[in-house]
């Protein structure tokens, strides 16, 4: 039997983080999106200890203010794309600027500098990623997926999907289905 999971990475990370902080007896206040306010001054020794504990989970303490902001941009975008409850009526550039209280130009430059990609590309990448998840679930038609991801038409979604991944949504669906069948077969063999 193969089970398929859907994760909320943010929630998982949050839980792991709180666990580790509690284990290290650090008083903190959760601000959300990977940001934690430590309510005491940490000694260098204690900071190293925490860093080592987090490294097991490949969690990094980000000291750089720029990195923190980039992470916030990413989190906001992911939330915007994946979270149904977040309804964005304005352009994503406006939404980002308002939410993060920085000019879009600043955010955009900063983002490209740190991540080797643009905010626009990152948004597209995340949208296509979400589309992939929905396609694999096979619960929704392409039309519904296009609507849900704010595309004007299926053709628009298909074009962007193909431009981003090099393959069409139907080919993607076919490949993943056959790949799973193959894995299943290998397991039973």
């Amino acid at each position, binding site marked *: 039997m193969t089970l398929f999971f859907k994760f909320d990475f943010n929630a998982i990370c949050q839980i792991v983080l709180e666990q580790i902080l509690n284990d290290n007896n650090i008083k903190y206040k959760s601000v959300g999106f990977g940001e934690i306010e430590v309510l005491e001054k940490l000694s260098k020794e204690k900071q190293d200890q925490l860093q080592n504990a987090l490294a097991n989970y490949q969690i*990094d303490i980000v000291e750089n203010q720029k990195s923190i902001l980039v992470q916030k941009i990413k989190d906001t975008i992911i939330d915007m794309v994946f979270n149904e409850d977040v309804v964005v009526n304005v352009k994503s550039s406006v939404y980002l600027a308002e939410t993060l209280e920085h000019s879009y130009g600043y955010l955009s430059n900063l983002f490209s500098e740190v991540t080797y*990609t643009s905010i626009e590309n*990152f948004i597209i*990448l995340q949208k296509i990623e979400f589309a992939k*998840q929905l396609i694999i679930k096979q619960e929704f038609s392409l039309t519904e997926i296009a609507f849900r991801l704010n595309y004007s038409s299926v053709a628009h979604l298909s074009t962007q999907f193909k431009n981003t991944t*090099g393959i069409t949504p139907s080919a993607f669906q076919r*490949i*993943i289905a056959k*790949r799973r069948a193959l894995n299943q077969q290998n397991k039973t063999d």
Partner: protein
Amino acid sequence: MQEDYINITLADDDEDDRLFFTDAFDDIKITTRVKTFNDGVYLMDYLNSDDALLPNVLFLDLNMPRKSGLECLKEIKQNPKFKDIAIAIYSTSASEEDIENTFIQGANIYIKKPSDFKTLKKVLAEVVTINWQYHTNSMNKDNFLLRF
């Protein structure tokens, strides 16, 4: 701790192609370390050795003497040790069916070798960037399919 460079490995029996490949990476913004092998056997011997530095992205030429890219792909997919490696097929040409088949076998990326150096650089840069996104944003690699 995240590494601040990406490990790239290529297995290709063609000397010119290996040259184009390494030259192309010199111009890419993301810091990469490129390692090349002359065929599939050399590659697999290295990957299976204990002190191997596993690449983030592995480029496989399909048509190689001794051990083909497809054979390497199957071997790699059967070994859980290599589950984090993104696999890019790097081939002269193939039919649509062959391309789909390599995806089904577990390849993440299919690159038809461009006949233009600029395009090659662009494609490789994009592969590395997108892989970087997957890598740094903990995205589900199972859904990582990319074709040029």
